[in-house]
C-alpha cells in the first residue's frame, strides 16, 4: 500500500477512536443531541415504507379487478370537467345498450354488465349487514382475474335465467361460514334464499374497501331485476381489452360503438363515460405524492432541527473543551486532525441517531405490515445512513473548523 494512503487510513482510524472516546465521555448529552436525527430518520424511513405499502396494496387491488379494463358508465369516476348535474341528466345505460354494444364491439375479449346493491345476508345466526353485492352476468368472471378457493362462478344458464345463486368473497364466506363448507348451502339475501355456488380466493387488499372482492357477493343481474331493482336502473358495462397496449383502441372503439348505440348525432356530446383503473391509479398517485411532499417536508424540517441541535451542541462542546484542544495542539495535533476529530464526533453521533431511528422504523414497519403488504426498503436504509452521515458532516463542520483554528496558547490559557 502507498505510504500516504496508509498514513491517512491510520489518521482516520485513530481519529475515529478519539472521537468515540469523547462521545463515550458525554453519553447523556450525545444521546439527547441525537434525538432530532432519531426522529428525522425514523420519519423518513417509516414514511417511505408506508408509501411503498400503499402503492403495492393499490396495485394488488387494482390488478385483481383486471388492469386492462374499461368501464362504460353513466357516471364519470374522475372528471372535474363535466358538472355532476350534467352527468345526472344523462340517460341511463340499459341492458339493451349492453347487448347492442356487445354485438358491435369487436376488440374486447370479454364484456359484462354490472350494477350494485346492498343487502343483509344471513346464514343461521351469522349475519353480514348490508353486504355489497355485484349483480352481473356469467361473463363477468372473464373480465377479472379472480380465482376460486371453492366452487365456481354462476353459469350462463343460471345467469340468463336469473337463478337464486350467489358467489361469496372470502371475508364474507368466513363470517357466514366460520367452519367452511359454504358451497351448497343456502343463505338468506334480503329475504330471498340463494344457493352458494362458489367462494373466491382471498385478495387481501383493504384499500378497495367495499369494492374489495373479499367483502362482496356476486349474483346474476337478472335475479336482481326480478327481486330487488327496476330494470331501468343504470348499469356499468365492464370491458376487458386483450392486453394493455390495446386499451386505447378498445376505448376508441367503445366511444364509437356507444355513440351509435345511443343514437347520438355528430354534434351531440357523449352521454356516457369510459372509466379506467388508471384513473384510480393516477388519483392515488396524486394523493401519494401530496403525502410524500408533506412528509418529506416534515422529515426535512426535523432533520434540519436535529442538525441545528448537533451544531449547537458541538459549538458548546468546542467551547467547553477549548483547553483539551489546546493540550492536543501543544503535543502535536495538526489543524486537520482537530477538524477531523470534531467532524467525526458529530458524524458518529448522527450515525448512532440514524441507526436508532432505523431500529424504530423497522419496528414501526412490522406494525404497518399488519395492514399493508410492505417491509423496509433497502434503499431507504442506505438513504437513512447517508442522510445521517451527511447531517453529521454538515452540522459538525463549522464547530470543528472553529476548534481547528484555535490558537494553542490562547486555548491552553482558557479557564
Amino acid at each position, binding site marked *: 500500500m502507498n505510504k500516504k494512503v496508509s498514513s491517512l487510513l*491510520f489518521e482516520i482510524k485513530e481519529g475515529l477512536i478519539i472521537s468515540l472516546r469523547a462521545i463515550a465521555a458525554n453519553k447523556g448529552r450525545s444521546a439527547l443531541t441525537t434525538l432530532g436525527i432519531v426522529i428525522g430518520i425514523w420519519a423518513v424511513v417509516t414514511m417511505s415504507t408506508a408509501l411503498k405499502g400503499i402503492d403495492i396494496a393499490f396495485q394488488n387491488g387494482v390488478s385483481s379487478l383486471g388492469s386492462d379494463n374499461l368501464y362504460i358508465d353513466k357516471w364519470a369516476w374522475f372528471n372535474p370537467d363535466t358538472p355532476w348535474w350534467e352527468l345526472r341528466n344523462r340517460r341511463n345505460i340499459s341492458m339493451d345498450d349492453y347487448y347492442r354494444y356487445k354485438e358491435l364491439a369487436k376488440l374486447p375479449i370479454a364484456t359484462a354488465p354490472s350494477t350494485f346493491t346492498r343487502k343483509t345476508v344471513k346464514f343461521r345466526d351469522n349475519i353480514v349487514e348490508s353486504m355489497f353485492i355485484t349483480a352481473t352476468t356469467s361473463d363477468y368472471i372473464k373480465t377479472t382475474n379472480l380465482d376460486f378457493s371453492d366452487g365456481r362462478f354462476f353459469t350462463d344458464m343460471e345467469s340468463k335465467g336469473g337463478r337464486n345463486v350467489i358467489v361469496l368473497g372470502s371475508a364474507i364466506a368466513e363470517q357466514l361460514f366460520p367452519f367452511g363448507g359454504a358451497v351448497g348451502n343456502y343463505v338468506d339475501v334480503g329475504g330471498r334464499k340463494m344457493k352458494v355456488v362458489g367462494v373466491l380466493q382471498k385478495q387481501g387488499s383493504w384499500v378497495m374497501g367495499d369494492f374489495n372482492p373479499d367483502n362482496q357477493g356476486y349474483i346474476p343481474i337478472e335475479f336482481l331485476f326480478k327481486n330487488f331493482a327496476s330494470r331501468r336502473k343504470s348499469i356499468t358495462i365492464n370491458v376487458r381489452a386483450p392486453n394493455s397496449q390495446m386499451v386505447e383502441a378498445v376505448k376508441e372503439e367503445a366511444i364509437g360503438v356507444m355513440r351509435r348505440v345511443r343514437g347520438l348525432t355528430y354534434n351531440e356530446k357523449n352521454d356516457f363515460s369510459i372509466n379506467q383503473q388508471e384513473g384510480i391509479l393516477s388519483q392515488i398517485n396524486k394523493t401519494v405524492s401530496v403525502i410524500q411532499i408533506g412528509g418529506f417536508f416534515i422529515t426535512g424540517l426535523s432533520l434540519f432541527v436535529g442538525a441545528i441541535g448537533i451544531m449547537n451542541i458541538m459549538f458548546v462542546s468546542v467551547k467547553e473543551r477549548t483547553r483539551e484542544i*489546546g493540550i492536543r495542539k501543544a*503535543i502535536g495535533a495538526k489543524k486537520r486532525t482537530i477538524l477531523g476529530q470534531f467532524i467525526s464526533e458529530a458524524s458518529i453521533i448522527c450515525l448512532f441517531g440514524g441507526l436508532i431511528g432505523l431500529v424504530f422504523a423497522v419496528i414501526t414497519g412490522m406494525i404497518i405490515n399488519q395492514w399493508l403488504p410492505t417491509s423496509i426498503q433497502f434503499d431507504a436504509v442506505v438513504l437513512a445512513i447517508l442522510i445521517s452521515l451527511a447531517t453529521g458532516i454538515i452540522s459538525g463542520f463549522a464547530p470543528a473548523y472553529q476548534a481547528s483554528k484555535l490558537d494553542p496558547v490562547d486555548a491552553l490559557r482558557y479557564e
Partner: protein
Amino acid sequence: MENIISIEHIARIYQVGLEEVHALADVSLKINRNDYVAIMGPSGSGKSTLMNIIGCLDTPSRGIYLFEKENVSQMNDNQLAEIRNQKIGFVFQTFNLLPRSTALHNVELPLIYAGLPKSVRLERAYEALEKVGLADRVDHKPNELSGGQRQRVAIARALVTQPSIILADEPTGNLDSKTGNDIMALFEELHETGNTIILVTHEEEIAQHAQRIIRLRDGLIESNEIVKERTLVGNNE
C-alpha cells in the same frame, strides 16, 4: 557542544486596544544539548511568552529563531505542530492532562499524533510511566491521582517522544515543597541521562537546581549566569 536553540533579537508584541504590549522586547540566547536552564523573573516579565515561542506554540513578532538550525519563524502551522510533536516535550504548571483519559492514554497521545502503531505506542508509554515511577497507576484517570502523580504523568507524556528538549513552565508551582522536590529529582535524573531542560520558576531554590539561570525583566534579559553551587537532590539522599 551541539546547539539546539538559537534566538536572536526576538520580540513578541501584543496589540491590546490602541496600546502595544512588549511581552518580549529584545531577547537573544542560545541553548545547547544537555543544558539545564532556569528562567526567572517577576510576574509579567515575559517568561511564559518566551517558553511558548521556544516551544513553537507561538511565533515571534520579529527576530530569528533557529531550532536545530531550522528557521522556525518561517514555518507554517503544520510544520510547527510536527516540531511540537517530535522535538519538544511540554510540562505545564497546571499539568494539562486530558481529564477523562487514563494516565496511559494521556502518555500515548503524542505518539498517536506521531503516527506510530498501537503496539509501539503502548510499549513506549509504559516505559515512560515506569521511568517516572507510575507503572502501577497506568489505568488511573487524572482525578484519581495526586498532584505530584499528575505532574509525573505529564512528564512521562513529555518524555515519551524522546524530544530534543523538555520545557517546563513552573512545574512545581501547584505542588507542595516535598512533592516539588521529588519532581526536581526527576528532572535532575532526566538531565543526567542526557536530556535538555528549560524550566521557568519563581523560586530561587528551584532555580538553583539548574546549571544556568536566565533572569528576565520587562521583556529583556537582565542576566544570564552559571549557577556556582547547584543543588543536587540526588546527592542529598
